[in-house]
């Protein structure tokens, strides 16, 4: 399936290869498989929440396990690996080097993902993807909980290995004629997200180990009866995972930095502004973690500090948005599937950010915390921005990876249905949160507004589900039987808008 290698190779040879394109392909297939599996779980949840009372899930324990695995899968087994997928594919090409800095380590990092995924999916723990103590230490049943902890430990190591690889490749293996300031923004996005991973993940690794020893009764880090503090875990967790959400979004923004200039047939408005925004976000992203913890009993001063830290990260995202819009302005835009996804992604990114500013305002967070507003808000980021950016980039890279074109009509239908569904689901969830519906609940009392909104949300979710089924069909059919693509200019953009960074591209 891989383009650069000219002869057909047995599948097992691709599987155990260390070449960056092969590893990238493995990451891509694995992450897409988990995307569909995690998404299917969401549909089951939405079916249950369609109306008050029991619909398809017999008991609340099963429901709790499903949403835990849904969140864990889509974050750790879809978004992070899919970013790694394209990073592996493109970073060596962008820095004009023959492979990643450590090809064998690269393969090792990938191969940690299937066993970790197996641990998470076989156990199906029930303590939410946060795994807050003291529920996770004294109340969550094993071995599911312990399997989840081990699975995430393995995924953390995999992320770290990948991040080391990216940083070394970009900084040390790049071509001597290529200064950092001229590095494509997609490569900058991998540098930024990898640096964040290197700083943030070890904290969570420590927290996981502490959870495990607490569960075994060997320690009391988070057990007040033994002198510990459950809130300490929340600090450790969010110190990692607030920067981690930037790790999730930065590659997707990088994807958009590839798509917008190409399909607008115009250079990016300001390369240096993009670089500055990535660097700013990387640093300031570490200053806001406890905005997830306003309700834990923090003092006024603490809350203020984190509110300021949160707001300080917004201008960086605003700079990216401006960059994209200014790039499109005055361009001769070809509205093919990839740019439709990118434009939809930016619109939803803006909405997600606006809702986030509401959450960061201390008094307003007490209305929205742990309600469906938060669910809608973060889904606008992970689905609206990250998934839209990733899917757009998958369409864009499809001819490059498979040599064939996907079906453009079905790609556009996929976009329209997904966009409509996303708005229906996640905008409505904001309002539902304002009406007070808490998160993570298996059932709800028959309050009329809640019932009406949940119906709308479930219908929207199934519209997204249908669109994703179309996507799956398009992917499978087109990679096997799609029309062979014009490898120099598959999208017909004309002129000099080649595929990303082909080594033969004279402009490099």
């Amino acid at each position, binding site marked *: 399936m891989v383009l650069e290698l000219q002869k057909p190779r047995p599948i097992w040879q691709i599987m155990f290869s260390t070449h960056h394109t092969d590893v990238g392909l493995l990451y891509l297939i694995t992450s897409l498989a988990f995307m569909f599996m995690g998404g299917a779980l969401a549909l089951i949840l939405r079916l249950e929440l369609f109306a008050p009372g029991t619909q398809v899930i017999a008991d*609340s324990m099963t429901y*709790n396990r499903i949403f835990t695995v849904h969140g864990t899968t889509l974050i750790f087994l879809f978004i992070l690996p899919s970013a790694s997928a394209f990073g592996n594919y493109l970073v060596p090409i962008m820095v004009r080097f023959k492979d990643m800095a450590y090809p064998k380590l690269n393969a090792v990092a990938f191969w940690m993902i299937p066993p970790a995924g197996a641990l998470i999916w076989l156990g199906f723990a*029930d*303590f939410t993807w946060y795994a*807050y*103590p*003291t*529920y996770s230490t004294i*109340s969550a049943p094993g071995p599911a909980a312990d399997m989840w902890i081990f699975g995430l430990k393995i995924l953390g190591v995999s992320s770290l290995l990948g991040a080391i690889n990216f940083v070394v490749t970009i900084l040390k293996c790049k071509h001597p004629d290529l200064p950092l300031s*001229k590095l*494509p923004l997609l490569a900058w996005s991998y540098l930024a997200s990898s640096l964040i991973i290197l700083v943030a993940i070890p904290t969570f690794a420590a927290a996981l180990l502490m959870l495990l020893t607490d569960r075994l009764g060997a320690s009391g880090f988070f057990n007040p009866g033994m002198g510990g*503090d*459950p*809130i300490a875990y929340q600090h450790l967790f969010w110190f990692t995972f607030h920067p981690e959400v930037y790790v999730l979004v930065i590659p997707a923004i990088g994807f958009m*930095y590839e798509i917008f*200039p*190409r399909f607008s047939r*115009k*250079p*990016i*408005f*300001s*390369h240096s*502004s993009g670089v500055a925004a990535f660097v700013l976000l990387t640093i300031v992203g570490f200053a806001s973690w406890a905005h997830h913890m306003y*309700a834990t*009993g923090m003092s*006024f001063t603490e*809350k*203020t500090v984190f*509110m*300021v830290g949160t707001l300080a990260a917004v*201008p960086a995202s*605003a*700079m990216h948005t*401006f*960059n994209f819009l*200014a790039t499109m302005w005055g361009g001769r835009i070809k509205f093919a599937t990839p740019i439709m996804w990118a434009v939809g992604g930016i619109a939803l990114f803006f909405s997600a950010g606006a809702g986030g*500013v509401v959450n*960061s*305002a*201390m*008094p*307003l967070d*007490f*209305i929205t915390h*742990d*309600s469906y507003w938060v669910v809608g808000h973060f889904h606008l980021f992970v689905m609206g921005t990250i998934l839209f950016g990733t899917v757009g980039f998958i369409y864009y890279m499809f001819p490059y990876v498979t040599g064939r074109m996907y079906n453009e009509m079905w790609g556009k239908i996929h976009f329209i249905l997904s966009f409509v569904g996303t708005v229906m689901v996640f905008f409505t969830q904001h309002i539902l949160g304002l009406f*007070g519906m*808490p*998160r*993570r609940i*298996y*059932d*709800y*009392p028959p309050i009329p507004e809640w019932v009406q909104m949940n119906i709308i949300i479930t219908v929207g979710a199934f519209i997204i589900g249908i669109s994703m089924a179309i996507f799956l069909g398009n992917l499978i059919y087109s990679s096997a039987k799609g029309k062979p693509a014009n490898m120099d200019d598959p999208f017909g953009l004309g002129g*000099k*808008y080649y595929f990303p960074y082909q080594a033969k*591209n004279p*402009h*490099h």
Partner: protein
Amino acid sequence: MRQMVSGNMSGHHSTWPEWVYVGVVIALLCYVGAEAWNIERIVEHVPADAEIIKVVGQQWLWTFEHEDGTKEIGELHLEKGKAYKFEVTSKDVVHSFNIHDFTVLMDAVPGRVNTVWFSPTETGEFPIQCREYCGLIHYNMRGTLYVENGA
């Protein structure tokens, strides 16, 4: 005609629109931050005459104790117009005490007592719910607040 390269070099153009835009964004954020700071400062000031109600969350019910020792399970009877300060804690896992209609929200953390105050402005029945995942019956860890006119 601008030099059209593969997108990673910007042409020569003015950048003032971007500076204006970033300036506007920062101004808006400063406004939001200042306003939020001010309101939270006011909201967190507990009146001196607030009656203290001890709230204990446990899997999966709320219990309340009034100043005079009266205990209630799952229900809370308060008077309209009076100020109440809740001292919230938990016996087992982290819960979150929430009376959404009056924007009362504070985590119940074992080993810790958090405080939040409010003054009910209307009579009636209002739901009390748990707003932090706490296990099997988190979804139904509910209670009712009854606000009556002062006797």
